[in-house]
């Protein structure tokens, strides 16, 4: 009886205990660290050299096949950009299937299939694995590389390149690669219109037949498949893949700058500067400093609690985000710290970047920072294991980098064993604060001088090439530039003789024909501009009787005073002749590189503050560019004489509002004709 009573009391106690009040005044302690079990990948190799990793995971009835080619980086030279086409060219049809058939068959089983120059990927539900493997093998063995697909890809690539020339982030990464590695290194070479146009179907075919070889390939199979089944299907689909000799390449190691320098791309329309403080580093997975460099970077700029983020965003408010990275690559990697900041604080931001890097190297990290970084990285390592593909990736890295078999199994132990002294030693070994290149893409007129305090400022163009040395004539003034222009096109007298004009231009945007029509009658204060698509007027601007209106797709809006004054300035065929008389201020902003032509930049400002920017070629005196932050840039070329005055017959309009540059050609131009009210409407 007693026994029972005691047991009862115990139960009671236990029950009470389990509902006991918890101490809410402090955070619960962490439980004992869980053992991180990393599944072993099973592996086998075919006679043709294909190495296979199988990571079985039956949680979901899915399976994926990832094929990776392990080759040395290649230098593409005058065909730079070619390898970027290989994957899509392979997916563009096979001896057995057109591209449409291939797309339909992949969609039909709800699968994915894709390729790149160094990989292929296929995934589907388990029950469709036969079909998806059949499609993958068809693409791997029988691609036909159709010419029309290459034409399409080239066109897209050229459009992308054109857009990237005005994209500050794209300019920044091109610049960083070019200055760190040089153009004769696989990581530094730059795609241009010329290199893209050079690429032929033969190049793609030759790449494919050289590199798609089983003896340099890994195949990772992840999902609902065991090793026995994997051996069977791999043999069936990849057993007859023929091996072959694959070329090997070595490259000289890029050297760090001997002292700190600034590489600047002047992008005058920028309101933000894209800053990248960078230097090359030799670092690959498995190096002695590899894990400590992950922690080091986490503390410097790895997230929203890092030193850079806290300083540049939280404390100073210079930017939406500031980050750093320390890369890892077999050949060569980079250390970089970057942010996009307001133009006015560009030099202050660079100062803070340098301060943080220097401070890190000289004074090291704290115990608290290291503990937090360890927790963050261990957490993300643990979370990454949920994806079975991570295990395949580990197995692949162990083979690629010759790592000890237990490298990942003991990764967290290695990470957690690192001390403050280890991290500080790594910082000193890897980072040389006085040998950084500070790349900056921004408004040169505002930032160039201020950046000189950090080192020699070397200017580059938007393709990462050293900018042409431009020597402006010191005696040049804005007024003289305009005089030269008027003289170059035929002289003020002949210009004045042209009272009216009707100009019609044709253009084509992605297959849609456009017509632009202009009517100038400045003497009578009249002006008309129409944009039509297939005969329908899409946009119209008219000025007459001291009033102006704009209409878009049939909706008309009267201009307000400010819009009217801007429109009036544009309503002259030769506004240069009237700027002064109409009270505009003219400023000469030096000699600039306009697509390779040195040109004087003249800023024309109205009393109300409206600004207009024109560029006049140094040599010919002709106006070659009109810059407008709102509507985009217009480039003028193909000047021809009409009534003794030179006028541009070709206009190229680049605007954020249109996806591709608009090439407009003059189809008719009538000067000194009668302009009726009907013409303006």
């Amino acid at each position, binding site marked *: 009886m007693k026994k029972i009573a005691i047991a009862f009391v115990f139960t009671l106690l236990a029950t009470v205990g*389990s*509902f*006991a009040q*918890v101490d*809410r*005044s*402090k*955070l*619960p302690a*962490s*439980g*004992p660290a*869980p*053992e*991180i079990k990393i599944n072993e990948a099973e592996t086998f190799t075919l006679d043709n050299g294909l190495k296979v990793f199988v990571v079985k*995971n*039956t*949680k*979901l*009835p*899915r399976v994926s096949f990832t094929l990776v080619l392990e080759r040395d980086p290649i230098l593409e030279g005058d065909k730079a950009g070619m390898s970027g086409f290989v994957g899509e060219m392979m997916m563009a049809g096979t001896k057995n299937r057109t591209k449409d058939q291939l*797309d*339909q068959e992949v*969609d*039909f089983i*709800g*699968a994915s299939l894709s390729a790149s120059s160094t990989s292929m990927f296929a995934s*589907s*539900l*388990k*029950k*469709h694995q036969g079909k998806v493997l059949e499609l993958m093998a068809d693409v791997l063995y029988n691609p036909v590389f159709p010419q029309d697909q290459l034409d399409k890809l080239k066109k897209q690539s050229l459009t992308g390149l054109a857009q990237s020339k005005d994209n500050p982030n794209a300019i920044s990464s091109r610049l960083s690669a070019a200055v760190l590695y040089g153009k004769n290194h696989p990581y530094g070479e730059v795609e241009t219109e010329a290199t893209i146009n050079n690429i032929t179907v033969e190049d793609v075919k030759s790449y494919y037949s050289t590199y798609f070889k089983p003896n340099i390939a890994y195949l990772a199979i992840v999902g609902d498949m065991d090793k026995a089944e994997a051996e069977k299907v791999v043999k069936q689909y990849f057993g007859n893949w023929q091996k072959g000799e694959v070329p090997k390449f070595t490259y000289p190691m890029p050297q760090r700058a001997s002292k700190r320098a600034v590489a600047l791309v002047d992008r005058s329309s920028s309101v933000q500067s894209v800053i990248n403080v960078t230097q090359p580093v030799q670092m690959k997975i498995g190096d002695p400093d590899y894990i400590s460099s992950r922690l080091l970077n986490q503390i410097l700029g790895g*997230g929203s*609690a890092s030193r850079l983020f806290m300083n540049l965003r939280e404390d100073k408010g210079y930017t939406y985000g500031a980050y750093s990275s320390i890369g890892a690559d077999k050949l060569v990697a980079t250390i970089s710290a970057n942010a996009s900041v307001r133009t006015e604080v560009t030099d202050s931001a660079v100062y803070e970047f340098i301060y943080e890097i220097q401070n890190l190297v000289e004074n090291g990290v704290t115990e608290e920072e290291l*503990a*937090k970084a360890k*927790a*963050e990285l*261990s*957490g*993300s390592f*643990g*979370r990454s*294991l*949920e*994806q079975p593909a991570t295990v395949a990736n580990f197995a692949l890295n162990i083979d690629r980098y010759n790592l000890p078999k237990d490298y990942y199994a003991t990764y967290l132990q290695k990470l957690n064993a690192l001390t403050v002294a280890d991290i500080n030693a790594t910082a000193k070994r890897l980072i040389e604060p006085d040998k950084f290149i500070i790349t900056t893409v921004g408004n040169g007129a505002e930032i160039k001088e201020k950046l000189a305090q950090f080192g020699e400022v070397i200017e580059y163009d938007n393709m990462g090439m050293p900018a042409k040395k431009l020597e402006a004539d010191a005696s040049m003034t804005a007024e003289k530039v305009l005089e030269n222009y008027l003289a170059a096109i035929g002289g003020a007298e002949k210009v004045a003789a042209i009272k009216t004009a009707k100009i019609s231009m044709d253009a084509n*945007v992605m297959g*849609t024909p*456009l017509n632009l029509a202009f009517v100038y009658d400045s003497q009578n204060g009249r002006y008309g501009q129409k944009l039509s698509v*297939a005969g*329908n007027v*899409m946009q119209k601007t008219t000025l007459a009787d001291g009033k102006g209106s*704009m209409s*878009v*797709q049939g*909706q*008309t*809006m*009267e201009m307000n005073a400010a819009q009217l004054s801007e429109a009036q300035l544009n309503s002259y065929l030769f506004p240069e002749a009237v700027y002064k008389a109409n009270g505009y201020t003219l400023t000469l902003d030096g000699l600039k590189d306009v697509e390779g032509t040195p040109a004087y930049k003249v800023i024309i400002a109205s009393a109300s503050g409206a600004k207009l920017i024109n560029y006049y070629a140094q040599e010919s005196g002709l106006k070659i560019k009109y810059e407008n932050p709102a509507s985009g840039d217009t480039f003028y070329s193909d000047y021809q004489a009409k009534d003794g005055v030179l006028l541009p017959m070709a206009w190229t309009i680049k605007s954020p509002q*249109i996806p591709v540059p608009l090439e407009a050609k003059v189809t008719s131009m009538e000067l000194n004709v009668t302009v009726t009210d009907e013409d303006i409407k």
Partner: protein
Amino acid sequence: MRKFTALGLIACMLSIPALAQNKIEFKEFTLDNGLHVIMHQDNTTPIVVTSVLYHVGSKNENPERTGFAHFFEHLMFEGSENIDRGQYMNIIQSRGGTLNAYTSNDITYYYELLPSNELELALYMESERMLHSKVDITGVETQREVVKEERRQRYENQPYGTILPETLKRAYQVHPYQWAPIGSMDHLNAATIEEFQQFYKDFYVPNNATLTIAGDIDYATTEKLVRNYFSEIPKGAKEIYRPNVVEPKKTSETRDIIYDNIQIPAVIQAYNLPPRNHPDSYALSMLSTYLTGGNSSLMTKELVDKQQKALVVAAIPLELEDGGVFLMYSITNMGVEPKDLEAEVDRLIKQVQDQGISDEEFAKLKNIMENNIVSGNSTIAGIAENLAEAKVIYGNTNYINQVMDAYSKVTKADIQRVAKEYMDLTGRVVLYYLPKSAQPATE
């Protein structure tokens, strides 16, 4: 004997589900205070996700105080009696975790993903939030500014960002779905601190919440920890307010033009949907995939590739508890009039209504759906969310294992039928998004 074997074989074949779906095991219980708890054990990776779904969204708001539910999603990171202001995220991150939250018209969802030895921390943090979150002036003022920025970034500054609020405003006359979760800044500015505190007392109560824990856990230990941290939280004092109005069927088309900071016009069409747990939801979801899901879908192939009238076209069923909207939007290609594009969209809808879809297309739809459902349960975070929604929206946690069956019941004829029944041109909302430059001058 032979006979039996043959029979057995047939039975076997019949019982093999036509579609692949691995069963998701779970355990659940309810505390005395009404908190419903769902646990899913999966020890393959030593991580654990802890989530709380509060069954409160913008539809539970006072029409004069819209934006409250979403505002709370922000406010609930301010801290609690025991967690210092601004430390919530920091604490989770410094123990190696990540966290996030979202608000819809129906629910507010919070989750933390942590190493599994931090389960107790996650339960502590969520129980602090439920027991005594900080709802004070300082927090309200801080978060007002953050929400203002979010509104700018996601709605006002985002091209086409106002599509959802503008559509909802017109798709509902009586139901509180007429306002979007972001709500009104004026309402948030006008609200007193007492109103915020009352909202917390009304909706952030255990009997309006579902706690889900999934991952590397032990059922018994987890249940004990949950009881330790959550049992003391008092049940809400009054019944949870849930609107019970039914949106009447619209009999005329609503048509409007929105002038936005955009360059290219867009055409929006919205059709009212049945409640989310209605059997027709499955056919409607397959219909949307048929129309615009993937490169080989009807409208993408016809309008984007062939005719090149549209740059993009998308059909999105916004499924809501009391009946959401089937939202279709398309962006015109260069030089295409919105009305020409709209006419083509309508023609293709009519084609489905009149002719239905082919056997092959139907088979493809089933395959795509199957793949999507299987992939939807590929992470423990996804499973936790699906379990919680199954319980709260479908009233049955095991619904997570029945989704595939529900889809397999849809027939080819159903797709045509729901196209006719719900894509009713007379009751729909049509919006043209046009560039601001096209706006006529107003006096």
